[in-house]
């Protein structure tokens, strides 16, 4: 299922190009510090059928810490390389945009947190120096700086608008204010202790990240998870999708000043959160997915879910039937298909721009064949399309929950039998999950003693953030909050 190729550093661009032109997408780039120098893993995935190809590039200790860039082949690759440079100090050679990504200007110069010898965070010393914004010059062009602290209860991010009149000429988003060092925190933990961390990579995606982590760990340990547990996981994944989608549908209405639909959407969300608590004991579904299986306190009440589904449908219909709301959504912040493809967008952002990728189809972890899973796709790329995709996904999710709940019993705690471990080789695994924001990729390497040697999670937000400024070109400033909400990207999941 997963092919691993050890290649020489000079082969990398050619091999990557072959894979990318062959229909693969770059899902993950992770650097590793082995005993004998550096190793960079490039994970390419395609599907269906589920295909995963890894390229391992080893750099001997006497070689310079540099790899040839893939930025000209794949836009996400360029961003992974910049992240790697900031955290590991591995230089992408001939990178077209060699600017910092993760590192704010107060980070100490020459300190790379992911290196083994990095040690504890040093005091702020000699700074990396200024990191200026590109200034757009011209008659009547002015800048609006927003954030990183915002008026609402949202995560921190700084946005710099260059505006003429009310039209946005350029938007630069500077994120990375919430760097917690998640990847470093994983190292050395036991598999069980890694789970709470995975659930907190992005608080609203507890199931998605936990599941990707568990799938990766299970592949690494050779654990066969029973079908019943996999179906329970698939059900939890859809529960998470619904409560996030419905909250955002309401907030999109609130952002155009139509508060009543938000009040009702939040009412429905509260019902869902209470249902979640009954099912897993946690309102955000933590503790439902565990390494080797799943644990349920109760099964979701399908009668109540049906009523909730009808409520949501009514809310969505009322929003779309309101001429002003419909007008505000239509044609706002269009992300064209070609731009979405080049940037490598995932999830509902991609599906609203005509790209129908979905990890439930390309990389299923449990059979979705007889679920009649349909992936809603719209191609207008505007706020309306993103609204419609998400409203339709709720219906699909409700059908999936009904399907997967059949044959489950609760309370249940299905765990796979412990696999015969004890091999001393480095064991690796990859988990691919369609979280509510899009495809989550997590790659795990286990140390010989069974602890986590390296965990690299990638949230879809990492791929989708660059699409936001592209969609906003020529949009007016007052439509930015609406657009931002329609993307609803994670700051914490992006930053790690």
């Amino acid at each position: 299922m997963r092919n691993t190729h050890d290649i020489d550093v000079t082969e990398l661009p050619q091999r990557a190009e072959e894979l990318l032109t062959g229909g693969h997408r770059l899902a993950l780039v992770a650097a590793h510090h082995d005993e004998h120098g550096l190793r960079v893993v490039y994970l390419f995935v395609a599907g269906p059928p589920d295909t995963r190809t890894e390229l391992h590039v080893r750099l001997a200790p006497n070689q310079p810490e540099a790899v040839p860039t893939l930025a000209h082949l794949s836009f996400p690759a360029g961003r992974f390389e910049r992240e790697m440079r900031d955290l590991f100090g591995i230089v992408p050679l001939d990178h077209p945009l060699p600017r910092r990504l993760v590192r704010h200007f107060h980070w100490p110069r020459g300190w790379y947190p992911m290196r083994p010898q990095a040690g504890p965070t040093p005091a702020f010393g000699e700074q990396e120096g200024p990191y200026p914004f590109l200034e757009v010059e011209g008659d009547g062009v002015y800048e609006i700086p927003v954030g990183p602290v915002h008026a609402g209860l949202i995560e921190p991010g700084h946005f710099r608008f260059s505006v003429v009149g009310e039209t946005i000429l350029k938007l630069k988003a500077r994120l990375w204010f919430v760097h917690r060092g998640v990847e470093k925190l994983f190292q050395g933990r036991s598999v069980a202790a890694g789970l709470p961390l995975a659930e907190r990579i992005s608080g609203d995606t507890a199931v998605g990240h936990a599941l990707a982590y568990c799938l990766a760990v299970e592949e690494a340990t050779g654990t066969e998870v029973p079908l019943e547990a996999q179906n329970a996981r698939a059900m939890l994944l859809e529960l998470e999708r619904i409560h996030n989608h419905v909250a955002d549908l309401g907030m999109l209405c609130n952002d155009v000043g139509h508060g009543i639909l938000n009040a009702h959407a939040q009412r429905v969300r509260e019902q869902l959160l209470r249902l979640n608590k009954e099912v897993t004991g946690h309102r955000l579904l933590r503790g439902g997915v565990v390494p080797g299986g799943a644990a349920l306190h109760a099964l979701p009440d399908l009668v109540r879910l049906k009523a909730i589904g009808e409520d949501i449908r009514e809310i969505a219909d009322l929003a779309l039937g309101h001429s002003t709301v419909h007008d505000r959504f239509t044609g706002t912040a269009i992300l064209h298909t070609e731009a979405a493809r080049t940037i490598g967008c995932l999830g509902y952002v991609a599906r609203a721009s005509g790209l129908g990728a979905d990890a439930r189809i390309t990389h299923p972890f449990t059979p979705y064949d007889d679920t009649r899973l349909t992936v809603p796709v719209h191609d207008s790329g505007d706020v309306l399309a993103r609204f419609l995709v998400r409203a339709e996904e709720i219906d699909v999710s409700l059908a999936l929950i009904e399907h997967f709940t059949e044959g489950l019993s609760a309370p249940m705690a299905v765990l796979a039998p412990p696999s015969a471990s004890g091999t001393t080789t480095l064991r690796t695994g990859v988990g691919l999950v369609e979280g509510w924001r899009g495809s989550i990729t997590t790659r795990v390497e286990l140390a010989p003693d069974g602890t986590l040697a390296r965990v690299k999670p990638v949230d879809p937000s990492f791929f989708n953030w660059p699409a936001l400024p592209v969609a906003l070109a020529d949009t007016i400033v007052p439509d930015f909050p609406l657009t931002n909400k329609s993307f609803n990207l994670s700051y914490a999941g992006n930053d790690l």
Partner: protein
Amino acid sequence: MSTAVGYAAVAGQVVLVGAGAPVVTGWMRQVRARLEGRAGAGVLQPWRDARKLLRKEPITPVGTGPAFRTAPALLVATTAVAAALVPLLSTDTPVSSHADLILVVALIALGTMALALAGLDTGTAFGGMGASREMTVAALVEPTILLSVFALSIPAGTTNIPAIVSGAAHEPARLASPAGLLATAALAVAVLAETGRIPVDNPSTHLELTMIHEAMVLEYAGPDLALVELGAQMRLTLLLGLLSSLFVPWGIATGSSWVALGVALVLFAAKICLLGAVLAAAEVFWAKVRLFRVPELLAGSFLLALLAVTASYFLSGVS
């Protein structure tokens, strides 16, 4: 005796608008909350907010000048003067002869102007952005207000508000005329825009980038903010009062009797509560239009005002 009633009426108007405005805002929020299925914070919440703000220390941003510091007081003062002039309770007051509609509109515009200058004075992007948007809206609203005023003043033959109001109270046919109805509609839209309500502005938003009025006053804190909020609430009450005086003038005291004044007071409170409830209910069903659609909306109201003027020329036979 008559002057005593008159002075009492003027004082009553100012006190009523000043003290009642936060309650009106609280009432509208409460109506809206209940209609949306929420519990709401209670009618007195704006007063509680004001008390909280007044207890805080005054802070002004570095580099701001007199425009920023005087704007809150100027806003409240202009609104208070306008509240004294507009015949909310009585048409027969010592200041009646000065209560020109154009003067009232100018006083309101002066308050808007003061806030816009304060927004610019802060030197922040939001202040400037809010001021620019507010001025764009104001520039489109002023002509509408003036034109609907002309439409109303043509049958009365004067722009003196007490004269228009008492004329309409004695001759209701003026209000039911096409000119009266068109002017009502035009002025209602203008009031929505001037007070920053949905569909033009959203007073309850937290999104800085979509704000118009709130963006200008983002830098205010403590007692200054309390004044700014009071000023905005007073303007809303005053303009609703103006609307009701012009188009539902019945019950306003036209003579100098204490009884009539008492009746006027009760009726005024009832009218404002009703009008506020209607506006709050309407806001539940509306959504905020795109900023670039606001001029279209205001152009529409301007057209209505223009039709009102035309109608009052053609249909009333005045030439």
